[in-house]
């Protein structure tokens, strides 16, 4: 029964892993993996010395770290607030709306953002102007703004969906604790402070730990659909860098080396975060 799946995964997941050999070669598609010259660590040496590489790495970690932090805080707060809503219908309507952007692709949302953030036609700059802003802001073409646009739009897309996990955690807190607190005279705020928040700590720690494994994934789909050469300085990340090196400039060996670097570091981070999650939160994936 396992056979078809196994074959596909061997070809398309383990096949590329064997292709990592390219990272240590001066690779030409015409000669293939077996006919290309081995160059040891030359590709790595070359790329680590590129000034743009340090910049790309810094961008990746910065953008990703910001997304992790803001992307955790917002859904926690929203889940706490949603939990206070008594009217079922209102709660469900809010949920329906905030989950929606998660299901649209970054192509669609990229198109939407490019339109609304446009300096000349975009509604955001029109609104800013009507509030008295003198000059339009080039959100997607200004290195000061671009990383924050990435973080904000990423949080906008996914905070709703992330609240699901925290809402689930909230419902699993023992109601008897709240009853006891009411008897002791605690108001809603006191209850939140002393019961809800401590009750959420394990899941928050778990989600934070797991997200650390993704620190080198700053969001290829999003960046690719929003960036332009003007903002490479602040917005270029490892994945977009690999794409341009490899599939635009055809430097297969170098691009594979960067990809391998990313895969290895990611593996260490993911394995580390899974271990921590397993050790301290008893989390298992299967």
């Amino acid at each position, binding site marked *: 029964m396992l056979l078809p799946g196994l074959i596909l995964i061997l070809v398309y997941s383990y096949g590329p892993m064997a292709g990592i050999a390219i990272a240590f070669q001066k690779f030409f598609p015409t000669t293939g993996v077996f006919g290309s010259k081995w160059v040891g660590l030359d590709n790595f040496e070359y790329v680590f010395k590129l000034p743009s590489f340090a910049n790309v790495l810094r961008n990746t970690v910065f953008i990703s770290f910001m997304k992790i932090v803001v992307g955790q805080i917002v859904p926690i707060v929203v889940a706490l607030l949603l939990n206070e809503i008594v009217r079922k219908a209102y709660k469900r309507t809010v949920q329906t709306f905030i989950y929606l952007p998660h299901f649209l692709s970054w192509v669609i949302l990229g198109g939407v953002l490019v339109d609304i953030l446009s300096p000349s036609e975009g509604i955001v700059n029109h609104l800013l102007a009507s509030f008295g802003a003198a000059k339009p802001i080039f959100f997607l073409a200004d290195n000061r703004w671009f990383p924050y646009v990435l973080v904000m739009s990423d949080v906008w897309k996914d905070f709703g969906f992330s609240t699901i996990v925290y809402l689930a955690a909230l419902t699993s807190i023992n109601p008897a604790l709240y009853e006891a607190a009411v008897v002791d005279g605690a108001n809603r705020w006191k209850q939140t402070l002393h019961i809800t928040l401590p009750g959420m700590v394990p899941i928050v720690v778990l989600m934070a730990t797991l997200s650390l494994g993704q620190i080198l994934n700053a969001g290829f789909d999003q960046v690719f659909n929003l960036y332009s050469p003007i903002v490479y300085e602040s917005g270029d990340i490892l994945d977009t860098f690999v794409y341009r090196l490899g*599939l635009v400039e055809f430097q297969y060996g170098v691009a594979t080396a960067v990809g391998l670097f990313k895969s290895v570091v990611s*593996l260490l981070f993911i394995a580390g975060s899974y271990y921590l999650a397993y050790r301290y939160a008893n989390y298992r994936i299967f």
Partner: protein
Amino acid sequence: MVQQKSAARTLFTAFNYTFLGALALLCIAPLVHIFAVSFSASSAATAGLVGLWPVEFTTKSYGFVMENDLFLRAMLVSIQRVALGVTIGIGLCVLIAYPLSKEVKDFRFRTAYVWVFVFTMLFHGGLIPSYIVVKETGIMNTIWALVLPGAVNVFNCILLLNFFRALPKELLEASFIDGAGHSSTLWRVVLPVSTPALATITLFAVVGHWNQWFDGLIYINDPKRLPLQSYLQTIIVQKDFSELTAEDLANVGIVSDRTVKAAQIFLGSLPILLVYPFLQKYFMSGIVMGSVKE
């Protein structure tokens, strides 16, 4: 729960309802705005007069898109891709999840196999080697390049695996006692009681395939075979609107680059908006199943 009716509480409740309402609107306002732009006259759109409601309502932009041969082809490719990709993906998922849901005593190498699959979630060969493998297997520029490389979705398999494991043991035992083998047990007993889990992963697979664009961009060279999202990526985001020349604009008069793009963005997200109500019914349980476990 006992509610205390203090002034502070009332104030907080009012604030909370307003704040969350505003937040919910903020999430869909940009989408509604694009929708409004797509139905507006180009002059109004360019002048920035369109808010959340179309100005000088017109469907000209949609007419323009509908006459675009490449757009319609791309839509067709996407539909084909979803049908093929989801069928194969779910089929494989079931075939993988069922044996792996067995205990080690029934399936000796279970743990080893599980790791073979899970390892692919942890480590990737990277973009370039994957690209070369797809090229070498000769599926470039065919729909198989969009379906096969990602056909085994390990995350979905694990969701299903966990669901199968939670099924009551007695149910399967009864089936075996009645003389059924593994395949008929899977087909006649396990799958029929697994509809919620299957529906969850099916909907996720539909959304995933519909939204995927990058593989189309790198594996498909022929513009006529691009799936919709990849096609949209090339025209919306890469800001290349070569098909729509100045003459076209002058002829059509009322459509503009912007309203046409808005129309295409809306059409590209339409299928998701249509399955969304069904999706919402299932994903809560699906996601919780995958992320929080006792």
